[in-house]
């Protein structure tokens, strides 16, 4: 599991920046609305009914 061996000390910042970029792309595609719609209705699968 030494997948990230050799990556430098700023790799976390690059990862966080990538995260920010992905969030922006998600916002552009309206994915936050999908998350919100799912999260504000009782998820029947999650509670073992659906």
């Amino acid at each position, binding site marked *: 599991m030494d997948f990230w061996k050799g990556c430098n000390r700023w790799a976390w910042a690059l*990862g966080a920046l990538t995260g920010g970029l992905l969030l922006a792309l998600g916002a552009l595609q309206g994915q936050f609305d999908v998350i919100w719609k799912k999260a504000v209705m009782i*998820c029947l699968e*999650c*509670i073992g009914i659906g």
Partner: protein
Amino acid sequence: MKKLRLTVQLLFTIVTNGYLYGFLNGKIYRGGLKYLCVPGLNCYSCPGAIAACPIGALQALLNQQGFQIPFAALGFLFLFGSVLGRFVCGWLCPFGLVQDLLHKLPICKKKKRLPCHHILKYGKYAVLILLVVAGSIFLWGGFAKVPAFCKYLCPSGTLLGAIPLLSANEALRSQAGGLFLWKLGVLLAIVLLSIRVYRPFCQYLCPLGAIYGLFNRFSLVQIHWEKELCISCMACESACPVALSPQEISRSPECIRCGKCVDACPRNCLLFSPKHRG
């Protein structure tokens, strides 16, 4: 450190599940904070939850018609993973806290790992690939996409979502059937196992732990081992709840950054630090 971690775990769980009205009335919060994800495994159908679960969000995006890369959910995972790694599991996850508390019960002899740990530890990656990703992308159960992890396995959904909701909501209670009993069985098995083995769900089944584990090697929050100061007393390995050696602690995807090794080291050669040593 032990008290500090418990305090942070309790406070974070209370704050992120602070919608008390929901617990009293069997309803869930419907405000704007649910556009965002919390870092830990926290069912968004918990009556108190004020934000979304990252695994639930990932499945919701994968469940849409047609295939779309779930940018928003991956964004949250990259952000939390890069900064915190599995520190999230050790300090911020409500279901991790539940397992920690269960493991403190002085009922039976405690074990750090299950037999065949070296194989079973890959279970969480199988859950991630088969239940979270494949279960959501491919067509299951009557040609409908299914959030398979939430539906068949997630014990956080049963404990934080189903039990409080069904307790307070008569209409929902009347609909509970075989699937609910299955999920209750899964939860019960994990609860019982947690009393004997340290965090069995986190070690063997949690897809969120699998994702954050991949970030552990380079996340900002690290535990560093000063090799030159080490006297190889192995106090850290004895204290580590998942039995990692000092060589493994900083880079292992299994380390949840609980800090027990830091407390145990008599020479202070293990320390929390954002500094990377290459």
